Each structure stands twice: as C-alpha cells, then as structure tokens.
C-alpha cells in the first residue's frame, strides 16, 4: 500500500498548473500563490523527491509521422495465457500502454497504429499464438483531455 503524501493548498495549485502545462513559468505560479519563486521551486523539488511528480509527458499529433489510428484493445483470456500474450504485445512497436484489468476485459492495450491492417494483423497474431476468448477493438476517433478535472486534494498536515 503506497503511503499517501500530505500536500497543502499551495502544492495543489502547483500540481494543477503543471499538470495542465509542465512549462508553466515558476514566476507565474509564484504570483498566483503569493510566494517567492524559490519557495515554489523548493516545493516542486519536494514533490519530485516524494514521488508525487514522477516525470513528464508529451502528447503530440502523431498522425504527422503516420500514426493515424489510436485504439484500445480489450482481451479476455485465462491467466495461464497472460505471459504468452503479454510477450507478443510487448514486442509490438506501436503499443504504448498494457495493463491488466478487472471488469469487462482482462488485459487492456492502448496503441497507435499506422494503418488498420496492422491492428488486424496483431489480432490475428495473438489469436494464432495463444488461446484468447475474445479480442475487442475500439478505435479512438476524437480524444479530448480534461486533466484539470482530476481532484488534487490537499490533506491538511
């Protein structure tokens, strides 16, 4: 069980700003919090040291390089087949997220394919090498992010 880190309102504001845009100017954050830039920088350091901030990510329009079809694939299979299927999926170059899940599917995969045929090929590859009950393919046509919707709650220290 991960230990929960106590954060306050200022930390909450900092995280909120950086989640929206990692390149938000420190001076801007400092102004809106009524603190010095040094104070903000120190808080960010602490949040990184405590593992609250794990790193950063860039989302960019991958269609520019031919990655046109973001899709999530849901797989239903026996746990005995997991290693085999996971190995196949990990060898693919366009798979970005692979998670075990509970619910409608047992494994959830997110990938971005260059063409629809590639997705179908992956489906056939998995079906040919492992015993899978079902493979569902959902093509993402218009993703919209609302990262500010996630509640970054301050726990009073």
């Amino acid at each position, binding site marked *: 069980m991960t230990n929960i880190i106590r954060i306050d309102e200022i930390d909450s504001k900092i*995280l909120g700003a950086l989640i929206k845009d990692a390149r938000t100017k420190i001076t801007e954050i400092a102004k809106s919090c009524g603190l010095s830039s040094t104070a903000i920088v120190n808080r960010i350091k602490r949040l990184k040291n405590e593992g609250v901030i794990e790193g950063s990510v860039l989302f960019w329009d991958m269609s520019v390089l031919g990655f046109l079809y973001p899709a999530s694939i849901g797989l239903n299979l026996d746990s005995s087949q997991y290693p085999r299927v996971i190995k196949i999926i990990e060898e693919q170059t366009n798979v970005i997220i692979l998670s075990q899940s509970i619910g409608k599917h047992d494994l959830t995969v997110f990938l971005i394919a260059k063409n629809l045929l590639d997705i179908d090929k992956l489906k056939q590859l998995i079906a040919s090498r492992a015993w899978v009950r079902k493979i569902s393919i959902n093509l993402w046509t218009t993703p919209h992010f609302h990262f500010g919707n996630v509640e970054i709650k301050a726990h009073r220290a």
Partner: protein
Amino acid sequence: MDELDQQILEELAEDAQESFLGIAKKIGVSPKTVQTRYARMKREGVILHCGIIVSLSKLGYQGKAYLLIKLVEGKTREEAIVALKQIQNVFLITEIMGGDCDLLALAAIRDYKSILKLIFEIKELPSVAQVDVNFTNDTSFPVDKTFNSLLR
C-alpha cells in the same frame, strides 16, 4: 514538420520541463529557434499537451477506470460528452468507432465507493444505455513514463 522539429519533440518527450536553453545546446541551435518552433508547434496543434506525470497513488487514488459507454438509440454523442465533462475525475473522453461502445471515458478512481458513484452518475445520464468498466491499478496520471517510447 522537419528534422529539427522532431529533435525538439524528442527532447521534450525525454523531459517536458527542460529549458529551451538546454534543448538548444543539445541540438546545436539558438534557444530562440527552439522557443519559436515550440510556439509554432503548439499553435499548429502538433504539440497537444506537455504536462507532468503525477503518481495518483501518492494522493490517495487506487487506479483508473476505462468506461465503455453505449448510448441510447437516437441520442447524440455531443450530448453525452458535454455531460461527461462535468463529472469529477473523468479526464479523457473519446468517441469510438467499431468495437463495443460509442464513447470511452477514463477516470481516476479513489476507492470502490467512488467507482460505484461514478458508474451510477453516468448511468443516470439520459443518453446513456449501458456502461461497462475496466479497472486497472496503474496510477500514473495521465499516463506512464513509457508513453513517449514511440518517439525513440
């Protein structure tokens, strides 16, 4: 988009907070060039989002839920999307083609009670016919650090 743009994207994928100066030194151009190209790529929608990754587990969350939503016949997706945007902790919504649903939403989940509350809230929407859930216990938000591996 040219090679220089791609190099800038690669540097940002490594560290989205790296200074323009730092990127400029690595690539061998002026910081002003990096800044200008970054601004242009943002303006043109090549760069969609540049944000930190937060460990939601450290903030009391247990995982994420993929919500596969089927709409009532005749109801528009727009209606449902507007309503879903209002629900707290739903952080991504996409229309779906093919597959087993009309919309997919991703939500951060604190605990069992909150999944129930979330599913109930979504089912209450007049345009929603059915909701299926996949719950994963990965808590890196919005995604894991491995996300930008496509660029390398």
